[in-house]
Every structure is written in C-alpha cells, then in structure tokens.
C-alpha cells in the first residue's frame, strides 16, 4: 500500500500545513523554503532584527525531550517574526501528572495557539499531533523539531541551505554522512532532502553497528571504511555520537571510534579540495571530529547555525500563511 497516501503535512491544495518530515515533499516545496530563507538571512544583520510577519501569533515550543539549542533557535526565529513565544518543558509538567499527549495538545490549542513546535523522544509523535489537529483544529500548525530517530526536518533544510550557499548546484555533488546513522533523525532528514534535490551520490559511512538496514532503498551507498567513503566528496556531514553509544554493544570506546571514523586533517584531504565540513552540533571534539578540522577553513558549522535561524523563520512564516 502507498506510504504517501494521506500525507498529513499537506493540505488539499498540496501546500504545507505542517512540517513533519522531508519525505514526500516535492523539490518545489524545499526550493520555496530555501528561497524564503535567503530573504530572511539579511534581517539578522540589521539593527532592528525583526519583521512583523507573525505579529499577534502565538508559537508554543513543546519540548517533551530536552534541547536547549534547538528550542533557542526556534525561539529566536519566532521572535524575529514578531510572534509571541511560550516555552513548555513538558516532561517536567503534565505527563508526570498523567495527562495524555493529546489532552495536553487540546488544552494548549484552547489557549489559541497558532503553531506548535514539537520535540519528542518517540518517532511519529508530531505526526500524531498533526493528524489530531487536522481533525479538531485545522488552523493550528505543527513544526517537528525532532522526533525519536524519525525526522528533524528543519535541521535537514538548514543543511540544504548551507550546501546550496556554498555549492550552488545539487546535481553534481557527492555527499557523505558520517557516524551514527542508525539513531540519527538528522541523517534521515538529510538523506530525503538530498535525494529529493537531485544529489546523484549520497554516502553513509559508519561501522555496521551504526548503519540501519534498508539504506540502499533510500538511495544511499554505504561505506564502512572512512577513507574510501570520503574519497572525492564535496560535502561531509558529521553526526554527533551520543554519550550512551560510546561504550557498550554498539562501540567499544570513543577512542577506537575516533581512530576509525574521526574526521582528521589527514582524512579530510581525501575529499575534494573545496569540500565543506558540516555538523549539526553539539560537537564532541576528539570523538567524531578533530579540533583542527572543526576550527579549520573548510568547516561551515557556525554558518549552519546562522542559516538555521533564517530557515526556521521561513518554515514558520510559510506555515502561518503570512508569506505567500
């Protein structure tokens, strides 16, 4: 049966109602978001860093899983659009009182929320919320800020913005994603975005314990040897290795991981001379990336953060319908 039936993030005109995943979006959707973001990049350099596009709108940051960084970038993006922002750290409040996820959503929707930015440890939770709101409050929008291992679409989009900024054309690129693909929602969103935008070769590099099955069906070439995988690539996306994965049944130690899969200056020369190095942050220096690379001339890790604000402004303003 078709997976993309009844795609809940699109309205009946095929426009974005929610942003849950990059999978199933058309290239035109992604281009529209990236073009809109580029019009916002300049705003952050102005003395008055605000546009009134979402004045009077209320954005609720619902973080069922902790994340200071992502929450802050959404908060800044909302404020630069002149929206009112309410931050809720849910694991500390209602769910411990036994309130169900959808009850929480109904209550907040009754407070006239216009948009929910949702992070959840379970894959599919933002989808479930969006589906519920489609039935009950079709004027409320959901932005997925990361769900389990499933998707982190705004991170994927800001990665695409960064690649487009430095490489212009997607259709002649080799892109390598390195590290814990198995547990990474960023990797999944990047893979869907890259293949949708026409990147001819997407590679995943990691040990077998961190590579999920079925990557070839997603159009990805897998490599277990870092040196082979990096050969002649234009873009390197390093993934964060979570602390809890560093020693145990998946990997013996952080040191051994760095030896096999750490991005060092010696390895970086295997890529194209003008290759860029990306990382969604926060970095583990000396685990997945050497400081000399992280601080080197090919790293675009801080520009990613800057572009991330503009991309999130673009997503929110497009969803709010205030940017047509």
């Amino acid at each position, binding site marked *: *049966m078709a*997976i993309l*039936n*009844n*795609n*809940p993030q699109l309205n009946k005109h095929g426009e974005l109602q929610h942003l849950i995943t990059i*999978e199933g979006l058309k290239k035109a959707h992604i281009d529209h978001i990236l073009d809109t973001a580029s019009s916002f990049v300049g705003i952050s350099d102005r003395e008055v860093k605000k546009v009134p596009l979402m004045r009077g709108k209320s954005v609720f940051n619902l973080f069922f899983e902790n994340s200071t960084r992502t929450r802050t970038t959404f908060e800044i993006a909302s404020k630069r659009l002149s929206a009112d922002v309410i931050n809720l750290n849910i694991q500390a409040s209602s769910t411990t009182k036994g309130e*169900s*996820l*959808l009850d929480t959503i109904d209550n907040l929707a009754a407070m006239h929320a216009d948009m929910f930015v949702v992070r*959840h440890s*379970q*894959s*599919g*939770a933002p*989808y*479930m919320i969006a*589906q519920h709101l489609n039935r009950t409050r079709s004027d409320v929008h959901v932005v997925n800020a990361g*769900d*389990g*291992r*499933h*998707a982190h679409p705004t991170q994927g989009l800001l990665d695409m913005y960064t690649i487009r900024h430095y490489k212009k054309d997607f259709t002649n690129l080799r892109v390598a994603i390195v590290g814990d693909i198995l547990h990474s*929602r960023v990797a*999944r969103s990047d893979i869907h975005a890259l293949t949708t935008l026409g990147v001819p070769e997407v590679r995943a590099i990691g040990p077998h314990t961190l590579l*999920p*099955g*079925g*990557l070839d*069906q*997603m159009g990805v070439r897998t490599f277990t040897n870092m040196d082979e995988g990096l050969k002649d690539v234009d873009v390197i996306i390093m993934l964060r290795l979570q602390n809890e994965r560093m020693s145990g049944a998946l990997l013996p130690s952080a040191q051994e991981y760095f030896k096999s899969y750490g991005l060092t200056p010696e390895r970086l020369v295997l890529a194209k001379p003008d290759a860029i190095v990306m990382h969604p942050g926060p970095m583990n220096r000396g685990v997945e990336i050497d400081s000399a690379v992280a601080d080197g001339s090919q790293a675009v890790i801080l520009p990613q953060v800057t572009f991330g604000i503009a991309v999130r402004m673009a997503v929110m303003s497009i969803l709010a319908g205030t940017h047509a």
Partner: protein
Amino acid sequence: MNIHIKNGRVIDPAHGIDAVQDLFIADGKIVAGGADFNAEQTIDANGLVVAPGLVDLSARLREPGYEYKATLESELQAAMQGGVTSLVCPPDTDPVLDEPGLVEMLKHRARIVDAANVHPLGALTVGLKGKALTEMAELTEAGCVGFAQAEEPILDTNVMLRAMQYAKTFGYTVWLRPQDPHIGIGGVAHSGPLASRLGLSGVPVMSETIALHTIFELMRATGARVHLCRISSAAGLELIRAAKKEGLPVSADVGVHHLHMTDADIGFFDSNARLTPPLRSARDRDAIRAALLDGTVDAVCSDHTPVDDDEKLLPFGEASPGATGLELLLSLTLKWAQEQHGGDSAATSPVLAQAIGKLTHEAARIAGLAAGTLAVGAAADVVLFDPDARWLVESRALASQGKHTPFLGYELAGQVRTTIVRGRVAYQRQDQH
C-alpha cells in the same frame, strides 16, 4: 432443545463433508435425525454455510486484571458474533494464570456467562518469569489445555529445557511464540526499510529463527510436544517445514492479520498496525499464505487482543500492541480462501473447506479439544454464516470492547448469522436482509 437446520451447505472438514444437507441437534449434541425427529426449532439455512463452531487458538479476554480493556461478557459476546464457540486464552492476565485457583475462577466466570467454551493456557513458569516451573498437573486438573509463556521469553535456556522435560513427563503441550530473549526486544516494527525510514526500532526475523533453532534442539533432546504460536516470517516457516519433515511433534499457527498485512500498512505510524509479532515484509506475508495452503501452518487464530483508546492513541512506539480479532477471524480467513482461487467469492473457492478446517478441527486437535466437527455425537457447537454477505469494519459493528484493528474501514465478506453452543442458539443476527 431439538433443532433442525435445513437446506444449509454443511461443511465438516474433519470428515470430508461438503454438501447441502440437514443437520439435527438434540440434548446439546449432533444427532442423526430422521423422519421421527421432533424439532422444537427449525432454522432455514438456505444460502448459508453450516460449519463447526470456530476454535480460536488465541483470544485475550483480559480477565482477570485488565477489565478496563475488556470483560468476559463483552469478549464472549464478540466470540458469539464471530462464530467462535471455543477459544484458548493465553496466561498473560494480572495475576498471571499460574495457580489452579485462578484458572478455576476464570472457568467458573466463563460458565456463568454461558457463551463460548473457554480453555485457558497455564503459565509455563511462575509469574511468566522464566525461573520456576508451575504446578502443571494441578493446573491441568483445573482446566488448562497447555502451558505457555505468552509474550515473555525465557532467558535461561536451562529452565526451558527443564520445563519441556517436565511437560513431556505428563504429555502436556508447550505453547511457545518463538522470540529470542535479547534480539529485537523493545522493537516495535519489522526490521526493514520501513522501520529504517520511520526511525522505529526493529524486530529482526532472526529473533524468530534463532528461537526456533533452540526450540527444535530442545525438542530433540526432550521429545516434548510443542505448538508454535504466531509465526511471522518466511525463514521461520522454512525451519518449521524442515522440522515437520524430520518428524518432530510440532504444530504451528499464524495470526489472521499476518495473512493479509505487511509492515507497509503501518503507513504514517498507524498504531492500529502495531502488532506482536510485527507485521513483516510482503515476502513473509506471501510465505505465510502459502504455508497455510501446504499445511506447514496448521491453524489460523484471531490473536484477539483488546486495547483501549488511551493505550492506542499514543506515539507508535508507546502504543500497546494488539488488535481486536474475534469478529474478524472468519471473514479474514474467507478472504484468504477467496484470494487463493482468484474468484470473487469464498463460496466457490476449492480451498473453502481447507480454510474452515484451519479454524475448526485442526485447531481443536492442537489444543486437544473434543470440538471442531459435526459428527454424530459431537457437542453441538455450530456456526451458520453467509460467505458473501459484506459488512463494514467499524467501531459500532464490533461487540468487543477492543475497537482497534488495522482493518478499520475495510469491507469484508462473510457474516455470521447464527451461533449455536452446546445445542443452544447463543447468537442470532437480527438485521438480516
């Protein structure tokens, strides 16, 4: 009550009967009838199939302990609407069915409700914890028809060995769902491209096959009889085929959902398709359909598992697994029969009798029940159904308290008209058209 069922198409697979003929019931039993039969009730079964009442090898009634999900009354009514006259219930209740008193209580409650015959499985180990053996002889005396671990795998292979030796001593059947106690534990979907894409933790096929290898080796060592529950994979079926060829005393069932659905039916995280074991690939599904035909799979069960809304309206990974099934078992098995010959009706399928056999005498044989046939002298457990009448799977059509099924919104063929248990009309569909 003396009942005369006229003009029905009587199908009794145990005796190779498939013919339009009359059926007579007296004193709770099938009788030969004849000219001097004095019928107190006559049922015209013209256009209907008259078959042995269905025997379901797995239906969770949720009593004791989970009455908020379902009660004996609601679920036995569902059984009647589904034409199920005997059902086997797994021991994963709260408390677990590991003491004779609990089994007696359950049997007693079922007798009061007076619908389907309820046959509990006792826990193989105390509390299903995989450490100490239960009093299997006492539990059998209380009414248990076999011993199972439900969804709790035994970590200690030595305990598994002892349990099988002990069961063999008394000739009891051990019912096991093959799952490795480590690999795939905590997984929520078939390990494959869909789980990878959706970011769901996977249950690999080897969870089933590794466990099967262990079980077969223990069977060779102990000679115990094992019934394998809810086989989900092509590779697992291949191993069972070989074990049967080898002559091991093994039988196997599949859940009826796995005859039709695959992991792709999870779609966008549809928690109604969250089942244990998980729905697997189309290749696995096709192998299950073929194995039912060639006899590798002996029986189809509903794997009826009522789950309440609060436990399903959750993100996929947090939602309780399971689907309602008692009322879909017949229709979904008929759907398989119909699809086997590509015709538009199960009634004309050459495997209709075989399909009914998987739901009746074959299932009864596995559970050691005197049920599943229409032979003279057998208990008069009978179902009358219209193989072509279509119905819409929706909440209000279901008597079960469990309203969740991945088939919600489907139109299925096969509707039960009358269910007779021990010679009594226990269910009669009202809105006949």
